[in-house]
């Protein structure tokens, strides 16, 4: 098989999905953010974003912390160490493939 095609096949499927790629890229650049920030930046609706986050949490890439800011509930999100490594690996393979 062509090496380039093989590299494409090796791309992390969890991260490669466009919605999840946006989430992981945004979280990679920060320490942590809340749900509202991701909703604003990705322009996804609450349900879709929630679904993607659940998938990323299952994969062990995102940590979700439910807390309060004063009396207002806040959902804080950050990439785990595994999530950061997976994204760095994904970027490296994508560069190779392109």
């Amino acid at each position: 098989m062509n090496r380039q095609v093989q590299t494409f096949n090796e791309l992390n499927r969890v991260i490669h999905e466009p919605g999840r790629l946006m989430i992981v890229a945004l979280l990679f650049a920060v320490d942590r953010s809340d749900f509202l920030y991701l909703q604003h930046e990705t322009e996804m609706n609450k349900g879709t974003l929630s679904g993607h986050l659940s998938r990323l949490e299952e994969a062990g890439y995102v940590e979700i912390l439910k807390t309060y800011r004063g009396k207002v509930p806040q959902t804080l999100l950050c990439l785990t160490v595994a999530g950061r490594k997976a994204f760095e690996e994904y970027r490296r393979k994508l560069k190779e493939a392109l």
Partner: protein
Amino acid sequence: MDQVESLLKRPRAYDNIDGVAELVFGFMCLGFSLIAWLQLHTPESSVWNQMYTFLIYTAAMISIIHYGSKAIKTRITYRRTGFVEYRHDKYWVAVGIAAVVSALVPVGLYLAVRRHWEVLTPICLVGLALAALYIPVARTVRWKWATFSVMVAGPLAISALPADLVGAFANHMDLTSAIPAKAVGAYWLTFVVDGTALMISGGRSFWLYLRHTQAPAKETSEPASSDVQ
């Protein structure tokens, strides 16, 4: 691939989505210009020329900047478009840039005096370096290039002004033999021009942000407890 890289830059741009970063730097430039003006245009024995006044003034300015920007972020920005906590390594990059720019001021003057250059040339270069630091901000919104143009045109215009006129802004007072009045006046003018440009640009960004965003209704601002578990 380019789209992934541009996504990685978005959180950094978000820091100034409300114009607060520009307002902070603009306020700082104008604040220091004001105290410098008072020091230069009042007698040496006046309260404005005392070290304790300068320290109290600086502490008050830092407090206003710290608590003011924090209040805007927590009461407006985080409620409307979300909260972001940046990685701490980025702060050291900002501190490093600030240190380099601060070092440029005395180094520029030293070189100018030592090599008998026209003293306004290095001051103009410092002004242009400040403008260069603004480029990442200007790239986020097209109209901010107008602010960048003012920050570039300002130092160039100041360096072209007659030395006597520039020196008048410093009350024709030489700080030392190495720092003539025209150098003080040129620095003062550069900070006033940059501070005013940043305050106007930041104020406009803040106004546009307030106009185009609103806090989501409480029931939709967060996912239900069954979601994201």
